[in-house]
């Protein structure tokens, strides 16, 4: 089969690989019809995530058609059209039993601090991802769901991470009616978080980014006020001024390790890999939220320590909520919202690439060229 493969920092290509096989009785093999590149794939692409091995296939956002099932699979059949949450999880360990699917203890021998994910290095279990013609899906009875007939593949693929994560971010921000919510980052997850904050009754939503085309999308798609941090000497002061000196009730950090607002952080984090990522956005969140407020962290960071302003968080009495989203937990509610016409996930898609053009897709996404917000990869058609 043809699959995207990692060849070292900033280098990927398409290679011929063996079609995945059933390695466990509850595995399925899925033929991928849509995959996406996620902002957090860029951490792998830039060589920031430990134990990213040459030959690894990225891609934790994908949907497809079931091609093969293992002997103990009961809930899926060959030919089913399925969406697969980005989390690999067993359903019954201590953590899964409590709904913490992203923290499953039975799928990632390489670490206990993080669960399993498709195509996200050996630090998350060593599973090849879905930017390929076929992918192995463990625990096929637990993770995947059949895609409702009325839902388009382009919308379904965004359910597998970006939309579910954005919605989850607004939930764990504990938004209540009338809250002022600041969202840092206007990528797909930030846009979905902003939109979700309205569903939860926010009174005001402000999105911060440095790219004008993304801010335009935040105004149009997420109905948000926007701030370009490059237009302000100090974005935290600007946000404080915009919120009557109080600070926002909730700040959602949807940036993660690739933040680039400060030269020292750029060197130590992005280039020398001595931090788990640049915590610029995280520190802005801590500074811009009001005392007693909540910071919700969706941005992905590496496992190394980061220079986070923890003292300010403590002194301000903040609540810091964070996790990888247990994507499937959000699906029933999100499907209701999509069906009700409250949002259409594929509105954030800007680019489509055949799998053979994966190097170009990564370059465009990584360098934020051509107005790119969300690129889809098409390994095969329905």
């Amino acid at each position: 089969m043809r699959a995207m493969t990692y060849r070292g920092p900033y280098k990927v290509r398409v290679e011929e690989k063996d079609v995945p096989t059933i390695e466990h009785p509850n595995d399925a093999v899925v033929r991928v019809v849509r995959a996406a590149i996620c902002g957090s794939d860029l951490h792998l692409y830039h060589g920031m995530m430990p134990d990213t091995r040459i030959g690894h296939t990225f891609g934790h956002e994908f949907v497809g058609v079931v091609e093969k099932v293992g002997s103990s699979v009961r809930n899926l059949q060959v030919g089913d059209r399925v969406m697969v949450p980005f989390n690999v999880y067993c359903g019954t360990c201590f953590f899964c039993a409590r709904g913490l699917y992203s923290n499953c203890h039975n799928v990632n021998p390489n670490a206990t601090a993080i669960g399993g994910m498709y195509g996200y290095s050996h630090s998350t279990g060593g599973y090849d991802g879905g930017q390929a013609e076929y992918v192995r899906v463990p625990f096929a009875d637990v993770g995947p769901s059949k895609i409702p007939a009325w839902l388009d593949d382009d919308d379904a693929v965004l359910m597998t991470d970006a939309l579910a994560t954005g919605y989850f971010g607004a939930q764990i921000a504990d938004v209540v009616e009338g809250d002022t919510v600041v969202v840092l980052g206007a990528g797909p997850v930030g846009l979905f978080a902003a939109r979700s904050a309205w569903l939860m009754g926010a009174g005001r939503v402000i999105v911060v980014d440095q790219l004008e085309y993304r801010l335009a999308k935040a105004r149009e798609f997420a109905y948000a006020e926007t701030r370009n941090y490059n237009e302000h000497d100090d974005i935290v002061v600007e946000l404080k001024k915009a919120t009557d000196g109080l600070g926002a009730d909730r700040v959602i950090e949807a940036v993660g390790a690739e933040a680039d607002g400060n030269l020292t952080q750029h060197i130590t984090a992005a280039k020398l890999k001595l931090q788990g990522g640049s915590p610029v956005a995280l520190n802005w969140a801590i500074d811009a939220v009001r005392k007693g407020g909540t910071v919700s962290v969706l941005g992905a960071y590496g496992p190394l320590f980061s220079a986070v302003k923890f003292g300010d968080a403590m002194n301000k009495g903040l609540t810091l909520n964070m996790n990888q989203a247990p994507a499937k937990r959000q699906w029933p509610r999100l499907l209701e919202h999509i069906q009700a016409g409250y949002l259409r996930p594929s509105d954030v898609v800007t680019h489509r690439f055949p799998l053979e053009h994966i190097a170009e897709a990564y370059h465009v996404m990584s360098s934020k060229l051509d107005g790119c917000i969300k690129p889809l990869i098409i390994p095969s058609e329905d």
Partner: protein
Amino acid sequence: MPYTAAKPPLPETPDELRARIPGWGADLDTANRPQVPRERSDLPNGAHWELPERQPETYPRERSIEHEMLTPVFGTAQPPHGLSGAIRRYSYERFSEARAAHWLLLIAADRVDAAGAHLRSLATLRPDNPITETGVLSELRRHPVASRRGRTDVRHQLLDPLIVAGPWIVGGVAVLAAVRALRRRV
């Protein structure tokens, strides 16, 4: 303003927001939110096992020393090999996830793996091609100048060659100095 108790008024009323924003307030009631309560034991999930059947271990699978056993299911995407594999195995066997050494060794192994793969590729019919594999050929079709206007990261990118090449140059000079010093002694 924060010097008095009242919360500042919102620019729009709930009715105005409801009229302007599709679905505004649909999840006002926190009980409607899937993540409430955060830890729930009543969620159906399709699992029909207490402890999943164990996937066969076809090679000595590396694992964190914080795990008591190899997890029932695991990825087999790229088994460790060569020098990078030795570094990875040492990191997994010696250091817990709490130690920076664990992660820094894994990142070092990644670099060794990348350099080794690049060298090996030169002996194949399809050597690594830094032009096609970085996707840089797409630049001209993708509005390279307009896309980068006014961005913070672009200012930093000008320094990147120095930051990336600098340690190599300093390292090379240090090795040269060490060799010279050794020669003088001999």
